[in-house]
């Protein structure tokens, strides 16, 4: 049985690898032999450019500097969004009064895409970093709040009953039951928020910035340098993937008790 599984996995990996190689070949041929090549960089160009960006600055930093800028912005906005989002989500989810006060305002603001705030954010905060942090904060905040709100509301009433029956006071219900129950939802929310925060930082940097991976892309467009754009896109994809995997790992560790057996 295990041998069969190993065989299938080998085929999967091999075909996957071949598929990517096929795609790269197709890309190369396309840029080498057609009109597209005039605009679009070939994979080989991209490869060298990518290596180059590690030690030769594009604009103010090398690729590492840009990545650092973008990631630190995400971390700032995401951290703030997490704190505010978790608090608001828990309040809305466990207190009907809190829900009545906060929910309508929340639902009115939520449908507005975070990036649409950029213009007014620039008017409010100027052309500096604050406007970007604000956008990143917004994109994380709405996602986290809604997930935790749903989670806090979805607490199994029977568990609350069991806790009361065992002698738990109403005050302690929140910390001993609602909070632990909500943890899986908190992590789902954080996971989604991290992805959207990463997208938001890219968007914010594309619209208004002097560095960062988003800046790399728009600047590349300005000088018609597709290899620079591709370097940017590649870094965005890789970092996005890494962030997502880290989050998933943390989630798996801390929420092991809630995973349902898959049939």
């Amino acid at each position, binding site marked *: 049985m295990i041998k069969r599984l190993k065989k299938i996995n080998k*085929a*999967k990996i091999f*075909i*996957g*690898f071949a*598929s*990517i190689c096929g*795609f790269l070949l197709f890309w190369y041929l396309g840029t080498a032999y057609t009109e*597209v090549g005039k*605009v*679009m960089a070939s994979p080989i160009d991209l490869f060298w450019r990518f290596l180059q960006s590690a030690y030769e600055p594009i604009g103010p930093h090398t690729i590492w500097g840009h990545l650092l800028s973008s990631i630190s912005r995400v971390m700032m906005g995401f951290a703030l969004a997490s704190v505010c989002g978790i608090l608001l989500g828990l309040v809305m989810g466990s207190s*009907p*009064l809190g*829900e*009545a*006060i*906060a*929910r*309508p*305002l929340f639902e*009115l*603001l*939520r*449908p*507005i*895409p975070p*990036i*649409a*705030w*950029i*213009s*007014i954010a*620039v*008017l*409010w905060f100027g052309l500096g970093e604050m406007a970007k942090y604000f956008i990143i904060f917004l994109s994380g905040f709405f996602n986290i709040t809604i997930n935790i709100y749903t989670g806090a509301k979805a607490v199994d009433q029977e568990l609350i009953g069991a806790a009361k029956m065992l002698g738990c006071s109403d005050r302690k219900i929140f910390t001993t039951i609602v909070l632990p129950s909500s943890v899986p939802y908190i992590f789902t929310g954080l996971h989604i928020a991290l*992805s959207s925060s*990463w*997208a938001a930082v*890219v*968007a914010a940097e*594309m*619209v208004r910035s002097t560095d960062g991976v*988003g800046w790399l*892309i*728009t600047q*590349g*467009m300005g000088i*018609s340098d*597709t290899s620079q*754009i*591709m370097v*940017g*896109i590649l870094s*965005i*994809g*890789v970092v*996005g*993937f890494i962030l*997502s995997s880290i989050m998933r790992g943390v989630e798996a560790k801390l929420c092991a008790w809630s995973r349902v057996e898959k*049939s």
Partner: protein
Amino acid sequence: MKKINKYTLISFLSVLTFVFIWWTATDLLKLTSPTTLPSPVKVFQSFIGKLYQTNPDGATLLQHLASSLKVALSGYLLGVFIGVPLGILMAWYKPVDYIVTPLFDLIRPIPGLAWTPLMILLFGIGLMSKTMVIFLSAFVACVINSYSGIKSTKPVHLWVGETFGAANWQLLTKIAIPTAVPMIFTGLRVAIGASWNALIAAELLASTRGLGFMIQQARGLYRPDIIIVGMTAVGISGAILAWLVGLLEKLAVNRRR
């Protein structure tokens, strides 16, 4: 019954209080300048004005909205009609899965907006580049959800089909796809949200028409009242689009039952 009314009243008051505080800060206490935070009255006036005036950016609110909708929906529908079938095929036929999934996983972590500059260089500033960006955003969501939907088909149901002598494609169309319908609709809902967001972002970057363009122009002209009108229009339209897809979902799911 009385309890429900109490909370609805509080909700209503909460929104009113918010607007009141806003108005007090701007008109009464004049805490902010009209170029950073306009009064709600001004915003409302601008909203009415923009319905039929084309200044200062060259089109009325509704013309911008129409332009945005046109682009968003073309990208969305393209994403749906390619993404949903592809997701289904990827989940059902292993060869397709093995070949396409690695490529898809490369595209997946990249936010749709990040493709904009590349698309602009390839297709110029216009309908095509924006449509491509929106297509990619919608496409990813549709594939992921359709894939999950098909994969969630219960093996038991397939075995039942097989014992009745169903061919493979019949198992797909008669059992797997109906099981996947709820998730496919979730994908459609996520995709419309992603599409609308991607559209606005793309218009903020490079456009000559549309709500995103209107917002961007207003910033250059120091007209935050128009920005807020734009943001509100974007929010409301996005919500309506999501609601419409939700309605479609209800109709489709109800028919099944």
